[in-house]
Structures are given as C-alpha cells and as structure tokens.
C-alpha cells in the first residue's frame, strides 16, 4: 500500500493505492493520525487506486474515524470501485461515511 498526502487549502487529500489489508492497516492508521495531529479539520480519502481491502483495513478506517470525530475532523471518501466498493456497501461503511464519486466532489461536500 502507498499513501500520498496532499495538503490543500480546504483540507488534506490522502490517496491510498494498492492493498489495505492485515499487513498494511497499521500504516494507514498511523498516517491518518499524523494528518489529524497537524490540526486538520477535513480529510478526503481517495480510494480510486485501492485494489483490495479486508476487515483489517475496515478496522483501521473505523478506528481512524473514531479518533477523527473526537478531534473535530471530518473524514470523506471518494473513488470507490470494484471489490472495495462492494466491501464498503456490505459492511455498512458506505452509508456511515460521506462517499463521493470524485476528489473534487468530496472537497465540495
């Protein structure tokens, strides 16, 4: 898994690519926490290039989201497709979070 962090005027964009699984979940949580600790109030997580996610990946997202809420930071998702979209839908995360089609829409949401 690779994460590209792009600090913008209206928030921070995290572009996550590859696999978010038991091997990489801790890295996602650590990187997300780092952005939050910088005082960010809006994070958009772009999953357009994420090919695979397991329950370990979902756990890292849920854990991050709980910390974000406590810190007053909102978490948005975009670019879901294929099995990642299906896993989001099946697990209920697709309705729990604000999910947009594109990065631009997510920053406008």
């Amino acid at each position, binding site marked *: 898994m690779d994460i590209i962090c792009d600090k913008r005027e209206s928030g921070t964009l995290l572009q996550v690519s590859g696999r978010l699984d038991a*091997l990489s979940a801790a890295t996602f949580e650590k990187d997300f926490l780092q952005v939050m600790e910088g005082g960010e109030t809006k994070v958009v997580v772009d999953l357009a290039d994420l090919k695979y996610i*397991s329950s370990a990946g979902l756990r890292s997202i849920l854990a991050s*989201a*709980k910390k974000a809420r406590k810190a007053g930071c909102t978490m948005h998702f975009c670019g879901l497709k294929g*099995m990642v979209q299906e*896993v989001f839908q*099946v*697990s209920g995360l697709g309705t729990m979070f604000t999910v947009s089609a594109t990065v631009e829409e997510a920053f406008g949401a």
Partner: protein
Amino acid sequence: MSETDAHLNITADFDNLAEVTAFVCQRARELTVPELLWSKLELVVEEIFLNIVNHSRLPPEAVVDISCSLQKVEDVPDDMFCVSLRDHGQPFNPLKTEAPALEQDVDSRPIGGLGIYLVTQMTDHCSYARQDDSNIFSACFRMKQAG
C-alpha cells in the same frame, strides 16, 4: 478426493498469510476461476486464516491444511471452487458468531466483528464442520457468476 485437489500445509503464523493467499490464487488461476472472483477469494482466505492464527490457540508448530478443489455442492448446478482450511485448534464455529450491527454511527459502532460477516457475504456457500478433533471451514464460489 477430487483430481483437482491441491494442498498446502503451513504453520498458523501471521507471517505466512502472503504464502497462503498466493497458493490459493495460483490454484484459482490454474482452475480458471473467473478473475472477478480473485479479490473476494483473497479476502475470504485472509479472514479465515487470520481467524485461525488469532483465535485457535494452536501451538506455534501447529499446521493448518489448506486445500483447493472444484466441487459439486448440493442444489447448485455448476462447479464451485472451494477452499477449505483445517486446523486442530479449539472447537470454533465462525458461522455462529453474532452478525455485526451495520446501521450504527461512527461513535457507537464497534471496530471489529466484520471479518466473518464479510466471508458469509462474499461466498456463494460456506460451511463449518468439526471432524476428528479438527475445525474445517469451507468457502465456495460459483465458477459461473450471474451477470
């Protein structure tokens, strides 16, 4: 045993996850499992193998037997690609775990409990049996997917 059977015996160690998924995906390719199923297959194998690693209380040298085969399952007309994981741990039927509450908000929702639920949703058929002091979990996928 079917002629399509292939086995991997491997210790129940987190570090073996990549080898386990590589073995199952290789068999899926050899048996021409549709490509759209591969990531679901990987997900199911990761969830079940790590469930064994984390909860079976096996000694470090204990081996998990993973097998892949094409099978006929009752009431299903087409062949199914089935992955079975067998371990000698404590009796544990994952299918008896409580389904997660999917409607809760971020604050009230527990972080865990999704793995087995995802397995049941991503497979076309799954089953658990306790045989000869072993847990045997099988996950099957239809070779011909609707649509």
